[in-house]
């Protein structure tokens, strides 16, 4: 009688263990999904990039170039801005940093924590950064991202990720 009761107890504990393991597997899958969140496509950021391409920059004043032309000039690296002689890559970096910081507030208590902007050109060996390195600000390692990319001629793509 005592042995049978012990067997029953062992069976009960085994069932509890199986239930606990199944629950842990579910929890693990859920947490992995949450932490490895892929950046979700954002119409707002897409619109931001589209509007930003049209901005008149300081490059070449009083015959200033649009941002899209400055990106192409920076990529070719051949010429400086006409008349002013400034480096188009410096103008590009400054303009984009200012526009992004004027459009969103990046702070710990803000809905947007940080950003990463990368301008790349597609080559046979893979994408190459036009600005040598991405432009970033605020907190950039976070659980959720919103992002969008916009293409330009010559295989150039501008991609912006906003950390939430």
């Amino acid at each position: 009688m005592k042995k049978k009761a012990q067997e029953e107890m062992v069976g009960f504990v085994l069932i509890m263990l199986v239930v606990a393991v199944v629950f842990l597997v579910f929890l693990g899958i859920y947490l992995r999904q949450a932490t490895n969140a892929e950046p979700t496509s954002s119409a707002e950021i897409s619109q931001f990039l589209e509007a930003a391409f049209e901005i008149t920059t300081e490059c070449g004043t009083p015959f200033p170039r649009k941002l899209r032309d400055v990106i192409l000039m920076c990529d070719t690296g051949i010429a400086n801005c006409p008349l002013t002689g400034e480096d188009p890559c410096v103008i590009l970096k400054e303009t984009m940093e200012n526009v992004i910081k004027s459009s969103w507030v990046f702070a710990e208590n803000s809905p947007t924590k940080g950003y990463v902007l990368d301008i790349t050109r597609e080559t046979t060996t893979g994408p190459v950064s036009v600005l040598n390195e991405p432009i970033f600000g605020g907190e950039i390692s976070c659980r959720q991202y919103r992002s969008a990319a916009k293409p330009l001629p010559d295989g150039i793509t501008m991609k912006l990720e906003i950390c939430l």
Partner: protein
Amino acid sequence: MYNVICSKKAQMKIQQMAFMLVAVMIFFAMVALVYFSISTANLRETAEQLREEEAQELASQLSGTPELAFTASSDCSACIDFDKAFALSQNPNHGKKLWNLDFLMIERIYPDPVEKTCLIPSDLPDCKNIRIINLPEGRGLSGTKTAFVSLARWDASLAGGSGDYKYEFGKIHTLAKNP
């Protein structure tokens, strides 16, 4: 004696079953909790995406209307004509007749504007906001949709003094009419 043993065994069985039922209930409750939290997160994301798409749609609709569209040059079809918007703001009733909105404002974001509303022509071009439709009294700004836009305006100082269009960066704010 036999009855007492049987009763104890039965009690043990009932207890075991009760524990089992509780464990199964807790398990299913936890699974349901995980499932609902995942589906709620997806729902929130979908709602956010729909809100963004709606704002984008509205911005493209407004920038496509002849009253605001930049038509002087063909190199920016999605731009809003800042000068037209200012002219419209001079008579708020025009905006109210044209669009079924409670609030319509165009905000300059870049280059950094001066913190003031564009009210008279001398405020241009450094002012920040053009209010085409003013918010009715007692109406809050909650529910306002915003979208990024390019703003085009004539700048006489460009092209060596002969003037050219300058493209700036801005935002359009709209609030649907209260039903």
